[in-house]
């Protein structure tokens, strides 16, 4: 086994050195019944060549990548500049661990610091942590954090969150004993602010929401009393959209997959978490801070660790330890590569292309948009015929479209959500229109 360098001769010499006669002796402390009960997997070792062939077979069994995705809902088919992959796959980055020893981890730490800065800039917030597992757990942690701060036992949640966001906060809130109260949506597809409950620790909205519609955040914070405003966002859209921070949001979370990560069948993802400085002590997860070394030179280190479980154990702000560090690094390199200018450009491409398609579909007989609120790069189409059949037609044409169940689960029956990114060409969009319009 070439992953285990020692040869038999080494092993024998080492055993002699420690005065043992066999490897088995080293396991004498495991109770015999446990050893006896052990069963192998009946798995023969295979060579690298064979395993690569087998994995290639499995990858080829995925037909999805050969098709044109109109899928969105939190994970999108965005272009990743090739330099991002080259830099993120430098082994000094990916084979290191958490920078417990800052003096030989300045690479990771400087990037964490840059990431925190970029996410703060993007979201318009004062501080950001070094990442969470994904957007959904970030949102769940935001709910728990708001509850720790306000302690009203109840949190209001817009009913137009992505289903997966909602599923995850349901689980976390249930265990923590936090009651979640639904806030319905308007015909525009927006959270109905006229129907906010009282006595809540926070309001959770998502913008753009599950219908792709951008929420009206202006003035919202003022209407919440002491409740915190939690906004789940789509960071790529913030290349052009006014950030939640500008509207006074207290916690902004988001799914960072759009910032240079492959879709990867949904993982690993990147949870973003930003808040106000005043809430630093309640912030979950790691942060890097600037400091000086013994010679007074600037450097970076993990800090504010008194919040973390290594020191506070059951009193920690969160149990998170391993996070999405390398995804955050990838996002940092992505943002550095495209710059504010490139981010604006790619956001505009998404916006224009999605609106091009939506406008064409709206003009087709038998189709309407389910909502008339402003949207970014995805929108919900309501066919007069059966949505399932429309989906079948699109899939027969080589596209990938989400099941109408996704919208039905949110109370919008017989509707399809379509997402359009910078990767979709006009020709592809025109083909969608043709298929919907019944041409070919």
């Amino acid at each position, binding site marked *: 086994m070439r992953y*285990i360098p020692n040869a038999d001769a080494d092993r024998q010499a080492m055993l002699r*050195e*420690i005065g043992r006669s066999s490897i088995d002796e080293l396991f004498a*402390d495991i*109770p015999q019944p*446990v050893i006896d009960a052990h069963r*192998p997997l009946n*798995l023969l*070792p*295979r*060579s*690298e060549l064979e395993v690569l062939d087998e994995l290639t077979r*499995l*990858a080829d069994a995925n037909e*999805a*990548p050969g098709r044109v995705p109109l*899928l969105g809902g*939190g*994970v999108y088919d965005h*272009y990743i500049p090739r*330099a991002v992959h080259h830099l993120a796959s430098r082994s000094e980055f*990916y*084979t*290191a*661990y*958490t920078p*417990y020893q800052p003096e*030989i*981890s*300045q690479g990771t730490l*400087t990037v964490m610091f*840059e990431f925190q800065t*970029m996410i*703060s*800039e993007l979201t318009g917030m004062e501080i950001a942590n070094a990442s969470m*597992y994904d957007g959904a757990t970030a949102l769940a942690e935001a709910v728990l954090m708001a509850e720790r701060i306000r302690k009203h036992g109840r949190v209001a949640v817009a009913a137009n969150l992505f289903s997966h*966001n909602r599923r995850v906060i349901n*689980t*976390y809130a*249930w265990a923590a004993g936090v009651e979640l109260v639904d806030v319905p949506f308007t015909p525009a597809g927006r959270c109905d602010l006229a129907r906010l409950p009282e006595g809540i620790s926070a309001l959770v909205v998502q913008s753009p929401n599950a219908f792709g519609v951008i929420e009206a955040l202006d003035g919202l914070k003022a209407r919440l009393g002491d409740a915190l405003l939690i906004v789940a966002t789509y960071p790529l859209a913030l*290349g052009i959209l006014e950030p939640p921070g*500008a509207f006074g949001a207290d916690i902004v979370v988001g*799914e960072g997959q759009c910032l240079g990560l492959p879709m990867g*069948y949904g*993982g*690993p*993802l990147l949870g973003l978490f930003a808040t106000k400085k005043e809430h630093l002590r309640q912030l979950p997860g790691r942060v890097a801070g600037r400091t*000086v070394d013994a010679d007074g030179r600037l450097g970076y280190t993990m800090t504010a660790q008194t919040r973390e479980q290594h020191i*506070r154990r*059951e009193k920690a702000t*969160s149990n998170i330890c*391993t*996070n999405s*560090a*390398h*995804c955050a690094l990838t996002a940092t390199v992505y943002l550095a*590569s495209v710059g504010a200018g490139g981010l604006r450009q790619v956001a505009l*491409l998404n916006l*224009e292309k999605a609106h*091009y398609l939506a406008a064409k579909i709206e003009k087709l007989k038998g189709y309407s948009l389910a909502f008339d609120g402003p949207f970014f790069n995805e929108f919900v189409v309501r066919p007069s015929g059966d949505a399932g059949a429309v989906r079948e037609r699109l899939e027969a044409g080589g596209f990938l479209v989400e099941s109408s169940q996704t919208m039905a689960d949110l109370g919008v029956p017989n509707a399809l959500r379509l997402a359009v990114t910078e990767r979709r060409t006009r020709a592809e969009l025109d083909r969608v229109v043709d298929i919907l319009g019944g041409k070919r």
Partner: protein
Amino acid sequence: MRTIFERGAAEAADGIFPACDVPAKGPAAWLGANLIRSKLPRIPNTSETTVVRHYTRLCKLNYGVDDGIYPLGSCTMKYNPKVNEDTAALPGFADAHPGADERYVQGSLELLYELTRLLQGIAGLPAVTLQPVAGAHGELTGMFLFRKYFESRGETQRTRILLPDSAHGTNPASAAVAGFSVTEIPSNARGTVNLEALRAQLDDTVAGIMLTVPNTLGIFEENILEVTRAVHEAGGLCYFDGANLNSFIGRARPGDMGADVFHFNLHKTLSTPHGGGGPGAGAVAVSEPLVDFLPVPRVVKRRDRYALDWDCPKSIGSVHSFFGNVLVAIKAYTYVLQLGDEGLRAVSDNAVLNANYLQERLKRTYTLPYDRLCKHEFVLTSEGLAKGVTTLDVAKRLIDYGIHPPTVYFPLIVHEALMIEPTETESRETLDRFAEILERIAVEAREHPELLHEAPTRAPVRRLDQTVAARNPVFTFPFETE
């Protein structure tokens, strides 16, 4: 360390994305002016040359497993095979959208299903979920499962989790996030669970125990069967933190030790890289009574097709947006397929041999508080090494010798702890060199303690001041002008 914000903010950076090929109206036309960003984020526009040089330079300030031994106890910093990176990057896997219909992602589903089966076999438990994405996330999932289980039995008074005092900090934190309170169980003189103290706590308010096997001292809980039996008899459940699976994989199974929930750290035992702190993957295996409570959806096989089963009415719900860290799972699967039974056993054989070999040698120079057979790691103390010399000093001095220090100051029950885990992927030659350097440092500690206090002097930076970082917190780049 210069940040990207101090480099060429005004460079030409265009050319990545195409021009718009549909008639463009501009954002205000579509959204109205008040939704549009009034101020661009301060992310510089830099040329590819600048970006590449910046991050190439930064990475060289790091130390990774590819640079040398990384004996961080409890973290299993084994070598990460390169083929793993390549299988996970195959476009068929990397470019699959989680919303795609099952029929278009049969390859990913088959892999997840097969990995699940292999992990069940390794754990000796009947079901596995791949949804948790880290060890602590697995713990939390486990605590959710405990809660759901007792809820289903109407035993909601079981709100206490018992924890050895040697436990990793994530254990109590996970229990707390899931709404449990924590009771600490002291370790005995042999470094294992004090059975008396444990029994004294076992009543019907106890939901269960969280154990690390072998524990964070690297010692196998010899009375493991007694411990789990006692907890079970008291109506509780047993959680096994699997961070240390590397020490018995292929030889013993948590299911045979009484585990009800067991989490794998795929990023430790199964060789997926640590990525500078993540992403990981924290698959969770459960015993029969807990199967129905596993997170939704579950990956199932129906005749010849693989599918997602959403119909799990007793489930705790979801703990992740989709199906866990699939690309990490692919790396682990690639690794296990190569090893086979023989290789898995070779892993624990060599991990334990390497640790005992080092322990035997180093205990002559450093104090070994629990002097007995260890498993994959062992804990030394720097106490008594030399006056005024701390474990931190020893660690920083190791850096000067070009080696990554062990885990320090953990577990908490050993003062000035140095927790050393070599892993099986280090050669005897490397171990010898590591030991030699630690021995040399012990001499320096007595003869030239200033070398340790001043260390590191050969790293990219000198010792960093934690107090300044904490007192004057700067978490974002201080831009000069608005």
